[in-house]
């Protein structure tokens, strides 16, 4: 399915989404945190979109905003889409978990929690994955400082 056709279908579910194809090879959707889970469930379950393969889930620190980027593909139709969700709350960033939709998200969300401190509601086992439990701070955030172990150019 073309990006345009995808956009037309998805707009009928949730009207106030932001679509963009600039500066990226995929169709990008930016969604509000409270609508994330609803959109994701539709993307997976709708027969015309069927995005059943979450091939990448990345945490991103845009400087002011923290967020998560989901790369989705349909193994039937082979179309791809990118969903982005952002929040300006750096103290307590929280999104809904999608690991009830794609099981791979369970590990990926733990990784994002570990390095960005982004919490996921309804995650079955949200704790640090790589770092130790007593580690302070979230290393992949842009404002993370570790004077001993980091070489800053």
């Amino acid at each position, binding site marked *: 399915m073309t990006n345009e056709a995808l956009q037309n279908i998805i707009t009928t579910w949730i009207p106030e989404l932001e679509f963009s194809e600039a500066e*990226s*090879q995929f169709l990008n959707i930016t969604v509000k945190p409270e609508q994330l889970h609803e959109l994701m469930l539709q993307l997976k379950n709708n027969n015309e979109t069927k995005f059943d393969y*979450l091939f990448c889930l990345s945490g991103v620190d845009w400087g002011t905003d923290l967020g998560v980027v989901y*790369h989705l593909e349909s*193994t039937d139709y082979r179309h791809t889409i990118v969903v982005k969700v952002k929040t300006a709350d750096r103290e307590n960033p929280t999104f809904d978990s999608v690991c009830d939709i794609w*099981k*791979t998200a369970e590990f*990926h969300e733990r990784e994002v929690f570990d390095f960005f401190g982004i919490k996921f509601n309804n995650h079955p086992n949200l704790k640090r994955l790589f770092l*130790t439990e007593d580690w302070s701070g979230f*290393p992949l955030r842009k404002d993370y400082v570790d004077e001993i172990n980091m070489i800053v150019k």
Partner: protein
Amino acid sequence: MEPIVVNNNFKSEEYFINMGPQHPATHGVLRLLLTIDGEIIKKVEPDLGYIHRSIEKMCERDSYQQIVHLTDRMDYLSSNINNEAVCLAIENALQLEVPERVKVIRTIIGELTRIASHTLWWGVMGMDVGAFTTFFYGFRDREMINDIFEETCGARLTMNYNMPGGLMFDIHPNFIKRTKEFVAHFKTKLPEYDALLTNNIIFQHRTKGVGILTKEDAISFGASGPVGRASGYSCDVRVHHPYSALDKVKFKEAMRTTGDTFARYEVRIEEMWESLSIIEQLIDNIPEGDYKVATNAVIKLPKGEFYQRVETARGELGVYIISTGTKNAHRVKFRSPGFSNLSLLNHISVGSKIGDLVAIMATLDLVIPDIDR
């Protein structure tokens, strides 16, 4: 008649046991926390991070040329393919068209890397389930590929042969001859692999029907590479999103439908045959031309987001670069195949025995630095 009451004097009790972080069957520093009842596995919880180097954070600090060198140290058995992935992402971002010669050489070396990785896997797979000879057979054949690599670029494992814009050097004059020698040699040796291990009845009993992964679960867990394809899930990036010279060659995507340990084993054996076929199709037709195009000494990617998918020996590797237009990346994410494949370990091994877990882990073919990026 009264029902017979079986008085079971043996109480069932669950307990924890550590496997790793230095266990021979874990192929690196992976620690598994097993909950077991007798010898039956109730839960497998991986404990990661023993060799995490935060390559993604280092990528934000280093220049784009330097990033390529870091990727060797993720999945070191697919080092050349990792390098290629980053180079392709950077070249796509710069809209740089590399010469045909570069594409063909990259594909040949990529397939040689895949065979080298699979021969090592085959050797240690046999050893994990108690067949010691396979290790020597596998390493004997892998040595020939490593010698070709050494002659080509000076390194045997972490190659750094790719760079944005092409290759570091042209191929060695002996490259074509030695690659052909290897292909001819390996074609006589692969049937020996089958005779020694595949057809071994003890091996088949250890692997058939063990660790079954359904197609739906494979997709949901984000399985890729031989792990996904053994469950009947067509997930070869080389087929669906061809890169370099892979659109010019014909090959069959190795697939099985049973999804058990033996199916994953068979897929990898078949993949080695297909890789040989790809090399044969290209080795006589390497186009003449330059082995690189010039790039600026300081590479600045345009503002935007770039994603490149490649098929390493383990599955789908994704390189996601967010650029703000400066000489450093704002964010680099590596979607590693081993990370997703590890996440399904608990799902497929619950209910089986500890010995089965070793066989299952062997066919997931985990490389720990790929998971602990």
